């Protein structure tokens, strides 16, 4: 299965590519009054209004700032995901499209099922699903539905 990798500070993370609707440059966010701090704001994606979560703040790390390299993952909503999936959709998946603002995206990687390892207990985190070893680095596979459910 294909995963799109991205970085958050010095940590490498990845999300399954089939859950992604599109990746866009981070430009301007429309502020949302009263929204939690971890929401960067709303963006307009071809008529769809999408709330964007600051991944850094959501994961308890440094805030992701808008830069030349920062990007927004727009995730498919539960209906869109159902249309392209052969398997049952994670019940946590949001009925709305949601965005994750990240520092920078990396390459797309192909990961075999048997490469997916459980997250070590001392690293456990509600958003982490698996760990994949690539060369000398670890890449953490996220449960995007979980992260997005935060919003």
């Amino acid at each position: 299965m294909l995963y799109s990798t991205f970085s958050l500070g010095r940590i490498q993370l990845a999300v399954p590519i089939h859950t992604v609707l599109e990746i866009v440059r981070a430009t301007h966010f429309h502020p949302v009054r009263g929204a939690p701090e971890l929401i960067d704001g709303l963006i307009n994606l071809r008529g769809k209004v999408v709330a964007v979560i600051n991944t850094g703040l959501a994961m308890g790390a440094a805030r992701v700032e808008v830069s030349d390299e920062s990007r927004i993952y727009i995730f498919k909503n539960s209906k869109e995901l159902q249309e392209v999936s052969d398997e049952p959709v994670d019940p946590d998946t949001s009925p709305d499209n949601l965005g994750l603002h990240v520092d920078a995206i990396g390459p797309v990687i192909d990961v075999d099922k048997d490469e997916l390892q459980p997250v070590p207990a001392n690293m456990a985190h509600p958003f982490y699903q698996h760990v994949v070893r690539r060369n000398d680095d670890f890449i953490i596979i996220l449960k995007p539905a979980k992260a997005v459910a935060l919003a």
Partner: protein
Amino acid sequence: MNEPQEIQFNIYHPVITYEHRAAYDLIVSQLQGVFPICNQGKCKALEVTDDPQKQKQINDLMEKVEFFSDSLINITKVFFDQLYRAKETSAQSISQSMAKIKIDMIERNLLERTCDVRWWALEKAFWQCITLSNAATSRKGAKGADASALSSAVEMACTRLEDIRNCYTLYRDLVIVNAQGVVVASSNADRRSQVLGRDVSGEAWFQRAMKTQDGTEYVVQDVSPSCLEDSESLIYATAIRAEGDEHGQAIGAMGVLFDFQGECQIILNDYLPSDASGETLDGWFSFFTNDKDQVICSSDQHFIPFGDFPGLPKSHRSLLKAGESIVSTAIFAGNRSLLVSHKSAGFNEYTGLNWTSHLVLPVSAMFERSLGRNDYGLTPKELMNSRLIPESNRQTYQEIQRNKGDIQLISINGIVLATDLGKSGKSFMPIFDQITETGSSTTGKMELLLSEMSADMLQQNLKALENLSKQAIELIDRNLFERAADVRWWSTDHVFWESLGAQGGRSFDEVNRRLGIINASYTMYRDLVIADANGRIVANSRFENRERLDGMTVSDHGWFRQGMQLTRSIQYGVQDVCKSDLEAVDTSLVYCAAILENGQRVGKPVGVLGILFDWKQQALPILEECLPRMKGSVVLGGAAFYVNRDKVVIASTDEANFPVGQAVALPPENTKLREGQSASGVFSANGRKYIIGSSGSHGYREYKGLGWTAHVVRTID
């Protein structure tokens, strides 16, 4: 993209290196390979889905890839042009400052020469000798007692001329000439027999000197033949006046023959790159021309001999304005060369002789890779975004980064789309892989070239700062040499030793007056003081300081103690910049020489002459002249300062960041410099990153330097 401009260095330009041409070919062919891939993608879109919206999405992505590839091809074309332009601009700017340094160096030296001759001509031994010689000539020869008086006056004049030459070693000879134009005394014992009796009445310098109005006037004869020497001479001259009175009648002349060739050789060969055996590299020349465009001195007598009209383009021969400069390329001595010419701007009140400094270097030298060390702890990105890199190159860098990001984004979104198409989308994957691969490989190559360029720019800038620091230390060394010469000569004045001598008797009023006259013709001293052998100030030049200084005990002052140890008239001492009771406010730099009993050349000190150099006023203009410049203006964050042996700043153009009186934390290799050694590097201070060029003092002629270092810096962030 930046303003479109004509490509000056297209990829077939002869200066473009083979490696760069190969990189260009590779980048362009890879990018051109993207178009058929995109076309293939458009065809596949029709095969893999019937959904017109999905087909459109795929086609849109393919078009975007084509657009960005096309844009990268265009960037590549201007990219190499910009790389070479940046190198060219920076090399030209460095060459221009080199040509300027050389002419400035000689001009400052010549200015000092004009002070010298005017002052020396007032010497008693000279006007006495001329008076006797003129009288003898009018009587058609001296006899008996007159003859012996004349002969001892000539001997005395020769001795005094020798004393001057011993202090000011940059003269080949000094002569005094009677009203008829006959040389009656000379300084150079080796050539005296040939020179005495020579008739210079037909030479312009003599005729013009005799017509000067008063003691403030002098004349200079540009480099030309004279019967006094075998080689061409640069002669400064002025009239010797009756009774040594500044306004008296001209009774003869004094001519001083500056060692122009020797001095110019040092200056011309300086800063030229040399091979392992110390020979100047082929194709590099440095020379001066006079106002008639004739060569007066050159770094290579074979290619550019004295008196020649070198094959310079017309634009280089018609510089009119003082300080004007021009750069062009032309064939010179068989090489395609960069020619730089800089017209003398004179110095202070000295207008100069309208000379022009020329520097010639092979065009290829401007584009050579610099092979210096590159481990300054700066990342390529930090360097690429620094101020050392021209704005246009920085914009290109950002544009490449942006295109790289866009292509990556398109690729990933393509993969998302292909994934959504399920099995049928699988055939798309290799296309997007290919696009990602091409995008990152080409932009990666361009980034590599840019970081190579930025490393070159760093090297060039470090070299330029090193040259500037070398200029700063040399100018101060040369300036201080003059001070060391001044103090030695003045200390031999008969008024001083007569009044301090055993018989004494003379009032110190005359000593005060004499010191006052000297100080009036030399603007760089705050005061001149004389202490007797007990360390008590007995005279000074400035009336306004007299009450404060008169009778002051200075026996514990460094300069006085040094002065009392000296027993020869050619020796001097110096007290490094420090606070002193002699000065009300400022710090002093005091030069000293012993006043020897009976005016002997070797003898017992009867007092000490101390001269208080106006250090700050002299050092600051030099430092300001040595600040790094781009297109004539000082670069932002540029600063220059001198540091003494104890690493304390003694003069600074930027008191906010490098204050005088405080130690500055410089890299050790920049302060532990041996005599005449230079170094460069990167350091952080005041929360900013600086690049720095430093040079250690190596003195000049008899002046040995005080272990100071000069530093020229600029910020890079």
